């Protein structure tokens, strides 16, 4: 049986296709100006990898901030619900799932079934989300993907304004004028962001194990800073950016099973 999950993110659309509960296809696309079209194409691509056609798919569930724009989905799943489901599926002992995406960060507390119990969201403010790193990389004139490795070379941290992207940019410029090295500034950026995310997690309570998902989980600089701030290890799956889509697909699978017993 095939099911699919579509995560309609603000910046990137992610698709996961499951065949009998195992991942059979993945695809992503830039959301751009026509997210529905982009999602259709990505879904076709993921189905191709999985060796299935749209007609073979029992259920498609959508999640993500643009979930209502997903192409013919059978249902929707909250982002927090999808994170919890995917986190516990990947790591059965996971109880805290942190999801840091382009424009939003979330922390979810869940039970052993992957059911969300509580959550904290940072929304409507760019500090604490991927956008912050992007803006700071621009100010530093460093490529986004180089920010993480660069920050690991820092010998110490110089504090910057963690609370606002606009002020953070000014702070980075001040540090450049003060001739702080780029690695140290990069480290300061990640520390600032990790500070914000960890304070969010602390409001929820840090329940081991802690899993980090979302596109920003691929940034080694952020991961290192977050581990330091949380004072605990953080587990990261192989495809952290697909966690939302995976969670939606898993929930679709549960529903499909319930609908037609096998």
């Amino acid at each position, binding site marked *: 049986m095939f099911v699919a999950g579509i995560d309609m993110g603000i910046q990137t659309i992610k698709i996961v296709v499951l065949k009998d509960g195992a991942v059979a296809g993945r695809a992503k696309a830039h959301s751009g100006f026509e997210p529905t079209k982009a999602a259709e194409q990505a879904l076709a691509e993921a189905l191709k990898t999985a060796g299935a056609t749209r007609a073979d798919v029992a259920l498609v569930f959508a999640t993500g901030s643009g979930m209502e724009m997903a192409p013919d989905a059978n249902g929707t799943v909250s982002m927090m619900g999808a994170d919890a489901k995917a986190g516990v599926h990947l790591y059965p002992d996971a109880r805290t799932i942190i999801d840091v995406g382009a424009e939003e960060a979330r922390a979810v507390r869940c039970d052993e079934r992957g059911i969300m119990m509580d959550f904290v969201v940072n929304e*409507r403010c*760019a500090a604490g989300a991927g*956008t912050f790193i992007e803006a700071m990389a621009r100010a530093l004139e460093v490529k986004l993907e180089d920010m993480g490795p660069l920050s690991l070379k820092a010998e110490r941290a110089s504090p910057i304004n963690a*609370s*606002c*992207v*606009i*002020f953070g940019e000014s702070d980075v410029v001040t540090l450049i*004028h003060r001739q702080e090295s780029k690695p140290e500034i990069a480290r300061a950026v990640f520390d600032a962001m990790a500070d914000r995310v960890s304070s969010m997690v602390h409001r929820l309570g840090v329940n081991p194990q802690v899993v980090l998902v979302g596109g920003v989980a691929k940034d080694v600089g952020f991961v290192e800073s977050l581990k330091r701030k949380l004072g605990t290890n953080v587990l990261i799956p192989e495809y952290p950016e697909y966690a939302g889509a995976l969670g939606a697909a898993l929930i679709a699978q549960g529903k499909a099973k319930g609908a037609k017993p096998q």
Partner: protein
Amino acid sequence: MTEPQKEYWRWEEYHRVLSEGNWKNKDLITAGVDVGSVGSKATIMIDGEVYSWAVRRTGSNSPDSAQKVFDWALENTGLKPGDIKYTVGTGYGRVNVPMANKAITEIACHAKGANYIWGPSVRTILDVGGQDIKAIHCDETGRVTSFLMNDKCAAGTGRGMEVFADLLKIPIEDIGKASLNVEEEPPPVSCTCVAFAKTEAIGLLRKGWTKEKVLAAYTRAMAVRMANLVNRVGLEKEFVITGGQSKNVGIVSRVETILGVKTLPSPNWREGGLDPMLAGAIGAASLAKSLYLKSKGT
């Protein structure tokens, strides 16, 4: 050769000496230096009356910015730094004002300065600076009775406005007027975060909105934010707006509409009147006089 990029966010720096001021035979000359995150202001007072001032952008070094604006305020006055009996530093960089005898928070200075500029009837002050917005409540002597502040977020601040001036390529002095140049007030932008509002604005421009309409939507959202802060501190007449954004007619008129109250008219700074941006520095120089007299036991 490429043309140097125009910096739309750059606002006017200037200094002024009031001709009617005469410091000879007067012995109490004080100064107030307000080092803000975006602008530095200095005021020289003779016996508690404003004599000269200077306004310039704050550089990356606070002590240096304080020194430069202080020196500029003294220019063409005939005064030497040694003639100044007492100097108070205020603003975000107040602890880094080298010539200051004392540092006082900008909240106290703004209330005192507003009391000087507009008189004892002022009760509520909205100070919109480069880096934060404050709603201040004061008594008839210009003493602070309560205040609320929004910091750590660029929404509504002068810095946020500079970002929009640059994005829309409209000189900062003109954005207030430009934001009023719409047939109908559009709904406010949904994001208050300046970083997200910028993305939203780009989307609106692509949709075919005029720059003025986008600016109106942004200014509206910021004015709502400011009005909320004022309402939370408690609006009591008379009401005034200080800080750099007091020069933004788009902000002032919208805040007035939302709150349903007019601000006391500001002196025309372009025609020699006191600049509402100077409230902090004037308050500092005024408090400097009291502190000097107190130190002399009078």
